Every structure is written in structure tokens, then in C-alpha cells.
């Protein structure tokens, strides 16, 4: 089976954020999948992967939480691929995979906890974890996507923002940086590739993998606001109308601190923030409502209308 076929039916791990603030990402991911004929089977009775917080209490608990999700996909649903659209979830599952393969102590703790919890222990290698970007890029590809575009995104200038967790630390992503066709950890381009195939004009954006301070979005809000402001301003300076996101935490961090910068620092940066799946969905002919544009905090409806997508 080629990669393409293997990704046509995957176990879908939305994660907690997609059931809350990232609701429109969940909606648009599913809508795009449906439109492209890709099958998403939600992981049964999933649990939180631990986000960025649990590892600070104990990293091995985080490994266990992520392993339980993969164990369900592999052992109870007989799936080979888990797709996670959230950078946090994607990162944690990858990290768990790495630790279980390379650290005996982690494997031992996970085994002990799994037995006590009453489910099969996940063994490294049982599933492959991918991001929503890999999912579309490798199953449909740019050409396949371009052939299905109904409303080109032409005339929309996009800064693609990948955040921290999609590429760092690189040792947990052994498939990246493997030459042509693979993703780059220093200059990721999968989102750029997909949106370009849908007609968008990607700008040269230097802060693709900058950090928005998401870890302290509430506990050290001033730092986060400054970091987000840098990102918004750099995108604007690069000539972008829209920042495309691929993570609910990055996305809501940008939206939240765009407002906070306005309210606490008096700095207003007028730039739209949309999930890449929302942009792709509209390019494929879905209405802004179908991809949840009205559920975003930042209002881009008028802008999209003007660009012929509303």
C-alpha cells in the first residue's frame, strides 16, 4: 500500500481543545476530509494527551496518557495511523512513541500503568502518528488538491504559522528532514504547499516557527502578548492579509492576545487569523459557515466576501 492509500482511512484524535476553543478547527477538518473522500474514524473513548502541562508534573504520566490513545487505536480499533490536528496532541503522541522506543524506564512505567488501568499496553511502532497537514498532503497531494479547487484563493496573501510543537524538538520527528518530499524542521512548508495548490499567495514569513508563549498564555500573559504581537506585526510587514494556523492552541493564542494587545498596550494589528482547513474548505467550495468561520473570535467574514469566498 502506498502512503496515499494508507492515509485515506485514519483514526482521528481531535483532542480536548477541538471540543472547546478549537471547535471551528474540528468542524473544518471534518468538512475538508469529507469533501476529499478521506475517512476519519474517531478514537473511541479517548483521553487527553496531557498537553504542555502534565509533563511539568511528571513526563512519564504524559507518556502514559498518550500511549493509551495509541493503544486504543491499535488494539481496539485495529488502525495503523492516528491523525491529530492539534500540535500539542501530535507532539505528545510523537514524543511518547520516541520515549517508548528509546527509554526502557518509560516503557516499564507505561506497562505498569496500562495493566493497572486494565487495557493493553501500547508497544512502540504499532501506529504511525501524523498531523492533519501530512494527512492531506500525502493522501491527496498538491496536484489532487489543485484539481478539486472550485474557488481559488488567488489574491489572498497568507503567512503560514506552524508554531513550536510541530517541529521541535526534532528528535521526536525522525521522518522530517529526510530530503525531497519530507517536511523541514527549520523551514516547514507543508501548509505553504497545500495553500499554494489552492491558489493562495504565500508571503515570505520569517516567524513560521516562532513561539507564541502558549505555555504561559494565562500565567504570564504579558510575555505571551509581546510574543504574539511580534508574530502579528511580522506577518503584516511581510504583506500578509491572513495568518494561516494548524493548531488550536496557536490559533486561540493569536486571537486572544491580538485582543489583549489592543486592550492593554493599545496596539491594534489588523490581520485575519484562519485555520488552514478553513481556507482549504472554502477553496473546495464549502461556505464560510460550513468551515466555522463565524466561530472564530476574529471577524473575517467581510474580508472573505471581498475576496469572493463569502
Amino acid at each position, binding site marked *: 500500500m502506498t502512503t496515499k492509500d494508507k492515509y485515506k482511512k485514519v483514526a482521528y484524535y481531535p483532542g*480536548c*481543545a477541538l*471540543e*472547546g*476553543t478549537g*471547535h471551528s478547527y474540528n468542524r473544518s477538518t471534518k468538512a475538508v476530509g469529507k469533501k476529499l473522500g478521506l475517512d476519519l474514524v474517531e478514537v473511541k*473513548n*479517548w*483521553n*487527553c494527551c*496531557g*498537553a*504542555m*502541562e*502534565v*509533563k*511539568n*508534573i*511528571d*513526563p*512519564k*504520566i504524559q507518556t*502514559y*496518557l498518550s500511549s493509551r490513545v495509541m493503544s486504543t487505536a491499535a488494539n481496539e480499533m485495529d488502525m495503523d495511523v492516528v491523525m491529530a490536528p492539534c500540535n500539542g496532541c501530535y507532539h505528545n503522541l510523537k514524543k511518547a512513541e520516541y520515549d517508548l522506543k528509546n527509554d526502557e524506564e518509560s516503557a516499564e*512505567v507505561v506497562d*505498569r*500503568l496500562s495493566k*493497572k*488501568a*486494565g487495557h493493553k499496553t501500547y508497544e512502540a511502532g504499532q501506529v504511525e502518528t501524523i498531523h492533519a497537514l501530512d494527512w492531506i498532503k500525502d493522501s491527496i497531494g498538491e496536484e489532487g488538491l489543485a484539481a478539486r479547487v472550485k474557488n481559488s484563493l488567488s489574491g489572498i496573501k497568507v503567512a503560514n504559522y506552524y508554531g*513550536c*510543537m510541530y*517541529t*521541535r*524538538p*526534532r528528535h521526536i520527528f525522525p521522518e522530517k528532514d529526510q530530503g525531497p518530499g519530507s517536511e523541514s524542521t527549520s523551514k516547514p512548508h507543508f501548509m505553504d504547499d497545500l495553500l499554494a495548490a489552492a491558489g493562495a499567495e504565500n508571503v515570505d514569513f520569517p516567524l513560521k516557527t*516562532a*513561539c507564541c*508563549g502558549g*505555555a*504561559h498564555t*494565562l*500565567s*504570564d500573559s504579558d*510575555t*505571551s502578548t509581546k*510574543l504574539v504581537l511580534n508574530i502579528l506585526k511580522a506577518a503584516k510587514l511581510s504583506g500578509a492579509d491572513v495568518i494561516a494556523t494548524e493548531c488550536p492552541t496557536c490559533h486561540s493564542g493569536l*486571537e*486572544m492576545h491580538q*485582543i*489583549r494587545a*489592543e*486592550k*492593554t498596550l493599545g496596539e491594534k494589528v489588523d490581520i485575519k487569523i484562519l485555520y488552514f482547513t478553513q481556507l482549504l474548505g472554502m477553496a473546495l467550495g464549502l461556505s464560510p459557515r460550513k468551515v466555522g*468561520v*463565524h*466561530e*472564530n*473570535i476574529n*471577524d473575517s467574514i467581510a474580508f472573505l466576501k471581498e475576496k469572493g469566498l463569502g
Partner: protein
Amino acid sequence: MPIHEKSLIRPENLQTHDELILDGVDVSGHWSTFIETRVVKDYNESLEEEIAALPGGEQIHRCWQCGSCTNSCTVNALNPDFNPRYWIYLIRMGMESELLRDKDIIWQCVSCNKCTYACPRDVFPEGVMKATSHWLELKGHTPKSPSMHFDEVFTEQIVKTGKIEESRTIRRFFARTGQGLMQPWMIEMVKRMLRGLPVGLLARMGLATFVAPKTNDWSKASAAIQEYIDEQHEKQAQALTLAELVETAKQDVAA
């Protein structure tokens, strides 16, 4: 980009005489600058081991002080006093009192892992930052940071239910850190959210504050995780020679 270096000479330890003539030579102003002698005696020889005993700190011994972590650091760009390379140096030298001068900012690491990406020695400086802020709290040098409160509220909810419901987590966090939820920017954000949200979703969000989402059959997993956390805490306390303290506290509670 230059390596951001940190001067080991503090401005308050530099002395100059505005007017000074020595052996007939005028050395007024900066010509007479000298550094006050300073002798460090209060080494904590086990500081490195203590940090290494906490999650994230395990590889601190590998550091060869190249400075790549500090050079790539997100927070260093905002605050030059935030210097992972320097702190690792102090820890390895056992210079606890020097480290404590920066105790109130170490927790501000945003876990972006730029340092981990840049480090040529796999020290995992991000982990070392976490271990160090943890150590500061365990030793009582700093109160629990807002970030630690957040991690705890978050983890408690997962251990209990298997899932996170954001508005609940946020409310608990604000309550625990004694902050008001009604901050102007929060209100503005919610206003903008309400503008676009369909009634159905609002109802669901409202509902979620009463019926938290949860993973079914979670109780056994929950118990196993809690047991493990307790076990680890005990181990860490021992490594930091805090065991006695814990015992005393336990007896205190019992009495």
C-alpha cells in the same frame, strides 16, 4: 547573531574615584576603575545532583557552555537576564546563592524548545529550566509560580476525568491564583466570541460547565496515575534531602 554573554562583574562591584592622583599620575574617573574582591564560600556541592534528580534535569552534566541555548531563547530576546546557559553554569558550579538572584524569572521559560533544537549536546535545556523552577519551589525559595498552579489544576482535572474542559480549568486557575476573571480583555474576547457563535454551541459550552466531559471507565487509570505521582513525589523529596521535612510535616498533620 552574536552569542549573548553575561558579564560576571556586577556594576555595583565596580569602583571608580572621580578624583584620584596616584604617584603623581592623574587616574581620575574610569582610569581608576577596579573590581571589588569577592570570595565565594557558600557552595552547594550537590546542587547539580539535586537538579538532575528532577524530571527534565537529567542531562545537565553534558553541558559544555557553548551558549547556543541562550542565543536561541525566546524569553532571552525579551529579557536579557533570562539566561539558561548561565544558570546551567551556576548549577554545575554549585553556586546556589548566585542562582537565587534570578529565582523569580526562571519559571518564565515558555517551553518553546528552541534551546533543545539548538543544543549540540542534548542537554535538553528546556527540561533543565523546568527542573530548576521545580527545585526552587520544592526548596521553598519561591512560592508556587502561576505556571505551576496552572499545571496542577490542569493535571488534577485529567487525573480525575481523563479530559480537559477549558473554561473549567481557566476558572479554577484564576480562583487559585486569586485573580479576577473579569479582566477587560477577557470580557472583550468573550463579547467577540458571542457575536459569531451559534446558539447550539453556546448551550453546549454552558452545559459543559455543569457536566464536564470525561473519559468512560477512567477510574482505574486515574487511581494508577495518582499512585505513581505520589510515589515520584516521595522519591524527589528524598533526592533533595527533604525527606525529613516531609516526615515532620506528616507527623504535624497527624498530631
